């Protein structure tokens, strides 16, 4: 069960958001969950994202820390391989297929907060 709260203080973390991600590069990724790791100090969603050219690229999505997510209602069973999700987040500055998740839209349409450090 994932909490549906949308009025949440931005969850922060143990490192600087600005050093890793770019607020000027918002991104929406729709794809299939490969792996959901609810680990410290941040959770990571691995997902396959089909491109317009038909090729699939794999992205790593950083979420808030697992304790913060747990207090929002997330569990390690909130996502599973094969789930279709949409992630709204921010791209990493280093140009890799890495992003920070602000919100995750589940297959049933529920939007859940997954923010990490400084997520607006």
């Amino acid at each position: 069960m994932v909490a549906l709260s949308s009025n949440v203080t931005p969850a922060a973390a143990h490192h600087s958001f600005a050093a890793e991600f770019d607020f000027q590069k918002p991104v929406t990724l729709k794809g299939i969950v490969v792996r959901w790791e609810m680990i410290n100090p941040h959770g990571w969603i691995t997902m396959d994202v089909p491109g317009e050219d038909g090729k699939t690229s794999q992205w790593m999505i950083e979420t808030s820390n697992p304790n913060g997510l747990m207090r929002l209602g997330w569990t390690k069973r909130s996502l599973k391989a094969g789930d279709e999700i949409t992630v709204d987040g921010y791209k990493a500055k280093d140009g890799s297929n890495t992003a920070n998740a602000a919100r995750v839209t589940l297959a049933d349409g529920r939007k859940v907060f997954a923010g990490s450090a400084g997520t607006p």
Partner: protein
Amino acid sequence: MRRVYLAAVLGALLGGASLLQLSAQSAAAPPVAPNASLPRLPGGRPDLQGLWLKSAGGFQGLFIGSLDGTNFAAPGGGRGDGRGGRGAGGGPPAPRYEYTPEAEAERLDRLKRGYEDPEARCHLPGVPRALDQPAALYPVQIIQDEKYVALLHEAMHDVRIIPTDNSPHPKNYWAWDGDSRGRWEGDTLVVDVSNFNGRTWLDMAGNFVDENEHVLERFRLLDRDTILYEATVTDPTVFVKPIEMRFTLKRVPAEQQILEYSCLEGERSLQHFTEEDGGKKRRVK
């Protein structure tokens, strides 16, 4: 079950803490209680025990993502110079750092080396950063008896066991969190913190201290559910004058508890820090 475990661990820790004490002095007699409504231990001291969460304020406050001084948590995303003083997301004004010329040069250099933030590498945060985590995220459990106040921080699994006998700091000992010695001044717990290893940062923005850091903390129970925390940070080889900070801790509902925080479990972020934003190298594919 869990409480039993925590009590057992704390008991072992409190027993071990005496190893570092050089002398023990008898605590002063409890003063006349000025506020009878506060929860108190049988000996009369204010009872600080419980689970607490920091409100806005402090060095970090809701100041997040700040290598270039941008406070994304402030209304409109305020920008600054990384030296504090912008306010802290609606909380008390953030303290203003005033560096010596040599230390200012070091701070500017660290802005480019954000990957070296020790806490990002899962080291202990130091004081006052142990309590001054980004607001409303990591709780701290306070456990107390007539001789000690123990702070069990969820963040970094940091533990501070503070004897309240005003005993002296040990010699030839330096640590990430320094050495804490407490005393009661009326209803205020005053903690003198020294013996730092000089490797900690005060926040994510490269603000730092060295081995000459000294902190005087004050914990005062304002009412059953509020602790006022104040800290004065001095470091004559880094700052030209003491830095003052304050924020409140709010009691967390009893159903909450400290959760495990295994920081090194899956750290994968530092590799993405770009060179111009505090990383070692650019990794554009």
